[in-house]
């Protein structure tokens, strides 16, 4: 079973085996792409990037009972957001205390502001509705479902080149819309 499949099971009804399977498949499906992504955030430092991926998946494991997605969506956005947060927090911490790494700091990191999250979520959904189906579906395939360019191209029956330029344009349109909503400057 894929991570996406297990993650759609209502957490309360998951068996311990489902939970193990969720974590195992998270590694299988997302560790590689996450590392590639994290490498960019760490300026190509593979060792640090691997640590970040490790920490991201540990957090997924700790939060396994809260991870729940709708069918057809992917945990990738959550993992990418967590990885980015870890990199930023690591960076801040290194600046604040150059020598030691304190586990207690990790445990007390502030959660993202819930109200802000909901506000953003509403704004993004409104923006997604405004960009039109062709651009929305390419974002859905590539981001929310977590596929690569080839998979999205096959699903949508358009060339990979078109997918790539379309995802870029979709993000530009989202930016314009979110600017208009006053969510970003």
């Amino acid at each position: 079973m894929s991570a996406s499949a297990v993650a759609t099971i209502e957490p309360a009804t998951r068996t311990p085996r489902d939970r193990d399977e969720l974590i195992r498949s998270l590694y299988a499906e997302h560790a590689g792409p996450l590392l590639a992504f994290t490498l960019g955030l760490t300026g190509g430092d593979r060792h640090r990037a691997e640590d970040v991926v490790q920490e991201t998946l540990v957090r997924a494991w700790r939060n396994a009972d809260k991870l729940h997605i709708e069918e057809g969506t992917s945990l990738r956005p959550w993992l990418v957001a967590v990885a980015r947060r870890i990199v930023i927090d690591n960076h801040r911490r290194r600046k604040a205390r150059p020598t030691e790494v304190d586990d207690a700091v990790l445990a007390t990191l502030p959660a993202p502001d819930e109200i802000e999250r909901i506000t953003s979520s509403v704004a993004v959904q409104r923006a997604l509705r405004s960009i039109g189906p062709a651009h929305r579906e390419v974002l859905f395939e590539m981001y929310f479902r977590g596929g690569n360019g080839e998979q999205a191209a096959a699903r949508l029956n358009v060339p990979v080149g078109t997918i790539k330029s379309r995802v870029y344009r979709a993000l530009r349109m989202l930016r314009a819309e979110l600017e208009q909503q006053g969510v970003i400057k």
Partner: protein
Amino acid sequence: MTTVHVDVAAYAIGSLDRDDADDFVDHLDTCPICPAELEWISRIVNLMSTTMYAYSEAS
């Protein structure tokens, strides 16, 4: 791949394969345009990451 600029969006949303992402990271070091592109795209992606539980659409 020659037109690696275009990968900035796919990279930012985490959907490049390992090899392509490695190529893009190399490209990022020397490209005068892509780092700034990555910056605004990453802000949008951060905002998008708030919607994962609510957004679903068949196609």
